[in-house]
């Protein structure tokens, strides 16, 4: 099986967004693989071309116009006192009070959660528990790996995430994906 880096992986590498371990692997792979190096250089050239185009089309905003706009903004701004007073006009105060009463009414059932920190359940819990039950299937792969790979890999990626979610992570996975697309 040929092993190549896929495009997403290359782009993440190009922008320095890979974890150190993957970054090192990508660097080593690019040293030895002309095909991937070619793709990397094409990707880098494309990014540079886009940046050059953007820079060329960048225009300076005329300073006189900017100054005039700011002056108009300052002139139009009301005083703080008049802003506060306007809040108590019936046209504003009555609807605001009504909304507050309605909000209190509907928020009351949520009071049981008030003062308690928001609870979360790890998404991996769902995936692992499902995989564990699936292992019961005698026509499936009755091995612990499906569920335990999730936990086993967590130690290496520093989080309770699974291999797939190592977000594009395991180089082998990416290389397999790249092979499939080539």
């Amino acid at each position, binding site marked *: 099986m040929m092993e190549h880096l896929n495009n997403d992986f290359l782009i993440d590498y190009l922008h320095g967004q890979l974890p150190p371990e993957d970054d090192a692997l990508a660097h080593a792979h690019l040293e030895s693989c002309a095909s991937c190096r070619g793709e990397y250089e094409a990707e880098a050239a494309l990014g540079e071309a886009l940046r050059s185009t953007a820079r060329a089309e960048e225009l300076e905003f005329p300073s006189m116009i900017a100054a005039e706009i700011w002056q108009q903004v300052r002139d139009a701004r009301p005083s703080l006192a008049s802003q506060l007073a306007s809040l108590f006009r019936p046209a504003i105060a009555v609807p605001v009070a009504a909304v507050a009463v309605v909000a209190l009414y509907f928020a009351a059932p949520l009071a049981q959660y008030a003062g308690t920190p928001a609870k979360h359940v790890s998404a991996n819990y769902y995936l692992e528990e499902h995989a564990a039950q699936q292992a019961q*299937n005698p*026509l499936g792969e009755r091995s612990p790996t499906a569920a335990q790979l999730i936990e086993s890999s967590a130690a290496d990626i520093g989080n309770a995430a699974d291999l797939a979610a190592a977000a*594009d992570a395991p180089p082998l996975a990416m290389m397999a994906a790249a092979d499939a697309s080539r």
Partner: protein
Amino acid sequence: MPRADRVRPLAGLFALTLVGAALGSVSGAEPDAGTLLRESMQAPAKISYVGQLETVRFASNRANANIVKIEHLAPSSTRRWFVAPDSLYGDYIITRGPASYEFDPKHSVVTVSRNPVFADQVTADAIFDRAMTNYKCVETPSDSVAGRPTVSVVLMNKYTGERVVRVWLDRQTHLVLKREEYHANGAVASQMRFEELRYTSSLPEGIFATEAPAGYKQTKGRDYSMPTADIDKAIREAGFKPYTPKDLPQGFALVSGNATTIDGGVRTLHLVYSDGLRTLSLFENATGASPDFGTLRPRTVQFSGHDAQYVEDGPTTLLTWNEHGLHFALVGDLLRPELVEIAKSVVP
């Protein structure tokens, strides 16, 4: 006695002999596909082997592969050394019945987990029977796998006609040498195959030793819960009124459930649906606990006015959403549109 009368009994005897021979040849022929599958379930309990096993799980935009060196001592001791992916290289798992010991040499840690389903043959038999009800077994032409001649059996869904699983069984031992699972659109969802295999009867028991080596720290892993077929009991223990899907793919039925408290006091109900081959899990909690995706990258999908989040883990899809004061998580080896259709029917 006329000659014809003398010949008639002889001809009858000859015919009977032919029928008998034909029946004999039938009874001596290979068993039918369903019987072969049933025997494949029992094979690991009878034969020991060493080999290399490769598993690839395909997602919509990538694939996950792992390669393990495997040593299996019948009936239930197995050691798997990870060769790939890189992050697991050198790690190994020893499984003895329901207990698994994960050895992580890089961090000098042994993690002990327990999954009681591995020791539950009664439930396994019931699931197999359900599969035989919902699927048709078709023997198909096959080739060799890991140098061994095989018999190939395809399991086709009786309601949709879709090919869901194909297995390649060792023609002699009936051990599953290769297995492919397919999505509803025909794409391969996962593949397992032996790259190398050698049967043996001389594996030393010592290689399945589970004691932590010197300098290793032993930690407790997950104790997976054993679902009960007493669904009412599970629902009572959950402590809230759950909702269940009204629209399931044909053949699926609610087979088990359990209520458990997880992650800082979140009472969670887990309902398990199965058609004998595919499994679907529905998790519910009434505490408002939303999922923490960690390093997973969830995406959003909308249905019935809900902003649901989903992630794909190989062929497995996880879909989560909130409704009627409950938090739901649906997990299955189904495509996202199929899961969404099921989700729509949970609280219609």
